[in-house]
C-alpha cells in the first residue's frame, strides 16, 4: 500500500474548483495584450485587460492538457515522469545568494557556485532533475538568463527545471536547448527541460508570463505554472481561500496555454506560502505553507493533471536544527502527497539563499521520504512464522538467509551525513555541518563530466559566443573552465 496524505475531502475540492471557476469569470483574470487576440478568438470576453473566462471553455481546455509526460536526460532516456503519483525532487531555483562553503555567511552567488551545486546534485540520486539554481552575480546580466542554463547543460546529464526572466530570453533558452537536443523536433519529442512560469498574484498573467505560456506551448516545451498566493497578503488569509486562488491562476494559465497549442505539456504547480503577520515574511518552512502545497497539488490531481510544489526549504539563515526540521518535514509531506516535482532543496532564509551543504543534508531527508512512500511490503508468503521456524525462541535473526537477502530492500542506508554511530577513523565527532562539508568534498572529487559529442559542444559554444556578441560582450566568461575543471581549447 502506498501511504498517502490527503488534506481535502472531495466536497471541499469541488467547492474550491467551483469558486475558482467563478473567479476566472468574475472578477476575471488580468491578461497581457500579447494574448488578448488569442483569448477573444476563443470567445472569451476581454475588457480593460481583464479576461472573463467561462467555466465550460476552461473545463474543455483542461481536458486537452496531457495527463502525463516525461522529461528526458541527455542520453534520451525518460528520467522524470510527470503524472500520477510519481515523486521527484530538484534543487531550488534562481537564488541570489549562497552560504559561502568556508564562512557559512551569505554572499552573492557566483557561477562557480552554480557549477559546484550542479556537480553535487548530479552525483545524488535523490535529485531526478537539476535546476538553474542560482542567479550568477559574476555573469553580465545581459547574458545571465541563458548562460546559467548553458552551465547546467554543460555539467549535467539530468533533466532541468528552469525558467526565463524575460519574454525575449525565452527564445534564446529554447534555441540553446534545441542545439543541445539536436534540433527543435528532437527537443519537442524528448524535452530535457521544463520552464517555470509565474502568474502575479492575484489573478494576473503579466506580459512576460503570458508570452512565456504561449511561446512554450507553441515550441512544445513543457511549462510549469508556479502560482504563488501569499495567504493574507496577495491572497485570501484562509488556506482554503488561497488554494482556491491558486486553482484559479492555474486554470486560467492552462486556458491560455492550451489555446496556444492544445495538448502541449503543462504542470499544475506553485510556490504558495502564508504571510507572517508579525514580520511580513513568507515562511517556506511553516507547516501551513506545506499544507498549502499539499492541498494545491490535491486539486491538480483531482483534475488529473501533473503537479509541482516548492518544498524542502527552510527559513533560518544558517544550517541549523530549525532549517533541517522544516526541510525534512516538508520533504516527507510532499512525498506523501504524491507531488510529481518538488523543488526547493538546498534553500534557506525564505528562498533568499542556497547552500550546497544543505543540499546534501536535504538529500538525506528526501531519501527517507522516498523510502517512506515505498511503504511496507510483505516480501514473502510468510511474514514471520517461517523465520521463527528456523530460529525458534533463540532469536538469531541476524544469521538468517532471509535477513541478508531482504535487509537492503527494507532499510535505507543514509550516507555519512547522517550520524548512525559509524565509527570515525580518527575518532573525531564531526557535527552535521562538518559531515555535510565532507560529503560535498567527496561528491565533487568523484564527479566526472560527461562531454557532449564534440561537434555539439562546438555548436553550443559558437551559439553562446554569437549571443554574447549580440549583447555587446567581447567573449564568454571564464566559468566554463573554472580552476577545478579543465576543458582546454574550449573558449
Amino acid at each position, binding site marked *: 500500500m502506498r501511504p498517502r496524505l490527503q488534506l481535502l475531502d472531495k466536497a471541499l475540492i469541488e467547492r474550491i474548483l467551483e469558486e475558482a471557476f467563478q473567479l476566472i469569470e468574475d472578477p476575471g483574470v488580468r491578461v497581457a495584450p500579447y494574448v488578448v487576440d488569442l483569448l477573444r478568438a476563443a470567445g472569451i470576453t476581454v475588457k480593460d485587460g481583464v479576461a472573463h473566462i467561462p467555466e465550460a471553455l476552461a473545463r474543455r481546455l483542461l481536458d486537452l492538457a496531457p495527463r502525463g509526460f516525461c522529461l528526458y536526460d541527455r542520453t534520451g532516456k525518460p528520467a522524470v515522469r510527470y503524472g500520477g503519483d510519481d515523486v521527484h525532487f530538484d534543487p531550488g531555483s534562481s537564488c541570489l545568494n549562497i552560504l559561502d562553503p568556508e564562512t557559512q555567511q551569505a554572499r552573492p552567488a557566483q557561477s562557480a557556485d552554480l557549477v559546484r551545486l550542479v556537480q553535487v546534485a548530479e552525483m545524488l540520486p535523490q535529485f531526478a532533475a537539476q535546476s538553474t539554481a542560482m542567479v550568477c552575480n559574476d555573469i553580465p546580466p545581459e547574458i545571465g538568463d541563458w548562460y546559467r542554463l548553458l552551465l547546467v547543460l554543460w555539467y549535467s546529464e539530468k533533466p532541468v527545471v528552469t525558467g526565463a526572466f524575460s519574454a525575449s530570453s525565452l527564445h534564446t533558452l529554447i534555441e540553446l536547448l534545441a542545439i543541445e537536443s539536436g534540433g527543435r523536433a528532437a527537443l519537442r519529442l524528448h524535452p530535457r527541460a521544463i520552464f517555470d512560469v509565474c502568474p502575479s498574484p492575484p489573478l494576473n498573467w503579466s506580459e512576460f508570463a503570458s508570452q512565456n505560456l504561449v511561446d512554450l506551448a507553441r515550441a512544445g516545451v513543457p511549462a510549469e505554472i508556479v502560482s504563488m498566493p501569499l495567504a493574507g497578503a496577495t491572497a485570501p488569509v484562509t488556506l482554503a481561500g488561497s488554494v482556491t486562488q491558486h486553482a484559479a491562476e492555474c486554470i486560467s494559465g492552462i486556458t491560455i496555454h492550451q489555446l496556444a497549442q492544445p495538448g502541449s505539456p503543462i504542470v499544475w504547480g506553485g510556490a504558495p506560502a502564508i504571510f507572517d503577520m508579525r514580520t511580513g515574511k513568507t515562511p517556506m518552512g511553516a507547516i501551513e505553507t506545506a499544507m498549502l502545497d499539499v492541498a494545491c497539488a490535491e486539486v491538480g490531481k483531482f483534475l488529473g493533471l501533473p503537479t509541482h510544489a516548492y518544498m524542502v526549504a527552510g527559513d533560518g539563515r544558517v544550517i541549523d536544527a530549525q532549517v533541517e526540521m522544516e526541510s525534512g518535514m516538508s520533504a516527507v509531506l510532499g512525498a506523501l502527497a504524491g507531488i510529481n516535482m518538488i523543488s526547493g532543496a538546498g534553500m534557506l532564509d525564505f528562498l533568499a539563499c542556497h547552500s550546497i551543504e544543505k543540499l546534501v543534508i536535504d538529500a538525506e531527508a528526501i531519501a527517507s521520504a522516498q523510502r517512506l512512500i515505498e511503504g511496507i511490503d510483505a516480501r514473502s508468503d510468510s511474514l514471520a512464522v517461517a523465520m521463527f521456524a528456523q530460529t525458534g525462541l533463540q532469536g538469531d535473526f*541476524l*544469521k538468517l538467509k532471509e535477513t*541478508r537477502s531482504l535487509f*537492503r530492500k527494507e532499510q535505507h*542506508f543514509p550516507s555519512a551525513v547522517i550520524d548512525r*554511530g*559509524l*565509527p570515525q577513523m580518527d575518532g573525531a565527532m564531526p557535527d552535521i555541518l562538518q559531515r555535510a562539508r565532507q560529503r560535498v568534498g567527496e561528491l565533487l572529487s568523484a564527479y566526472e563530466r560527461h562531454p557532449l559529442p564534440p561537434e555539439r559542444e562546438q555548436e553550443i559554444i559558437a551559439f553562446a559566443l554569437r549571443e554574447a556578441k549580440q549583447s555587446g560582450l567581447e567573449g564568454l566568461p571564464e566559468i566554463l573552465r573554472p580552476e577545478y575543471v579543465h576543458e582546454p581549447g574550449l573558449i
Partner: protein
Amino acid sequence: MPDDTFSAMRQSIIDGAPDTASGLALQALSAGVAPIDAINRGYVPGMHNVGEQFARGQMYLPDMMASAEAMRAAMAVLDPELKKLGTERPMAGIVVLGTTKGDIHEIGKILVGTLLTAHGFRVHDLGVDVAGEKFAAQARELHADIVGVSALLTTTMRNQKGVVEAIEKAGLRPQVRIMVGGAPVTRRWAEEIGADGYAKDAMSAVELARELMQLRRDVACNVSAGTTPEP
C-alpha cells in the same frame, strides 16, 4: 596451488558463501595444499577484507555474519587436518567471550567475536547469561589471554564487576586481561571495576585486544629482563 584458488577462497568469505568456502577447502586438501596455507593465504585475507569493509560502513551486519559462517565452514574442514599434522594456526591471542549473568543480548558480542576471529584471535564464545565463575573456569582451561565481557543493560552491567572478581579469586589476574563493552559501559566504569580496557564498538574491541596482547608481551619481556611493571 594457483593464486586464483586462494583468491576464490578469499572471495568465498567476502561473499559469505559457506558451501563454496568448505568446497574449496576440500579441493585444496585433495590437491595437497597445506591447510595452514589455505587459511593464511585464502580465508584469513577474506575475513580481513570483511572487517575493513565493515569498519568503513561498506558491508553490513548480515553480510559479516554470513562471512563468519563461511569462515567456520572452511575451518571445520581445515582444523582437523591441522591437528593431524600437529601444526597450529598462528594466532594473535586466545579470547574467552561472553555476556554477563542475567543478560541475554549477544549481537554486540557476536560482532566482537567475528571481528576478533577475522584478525587472528582464537575466540571461545561462552554465549549469554554467563556467571563470573564460568568465565574464570573457561579462562583457566583454555589458557585465555583475554576475557571479554559484554552487557547491554545498566542492571546487568554491574555483573561485569563479578567477572573481574571471579578471575581475581581464581588467581588468574596476572595472566588474563579483561575487556568490557556494551551500550551502557564507559571507560570510567571499566576503570572503576578494575577491568583492563573498554571498547565502544566491535572494531575498537579488536584494537583494544591487540593493545592488551602487546602489553602482555611487554610485561613478559620486562619480567624476563628483571623488571616488574604494573600490568
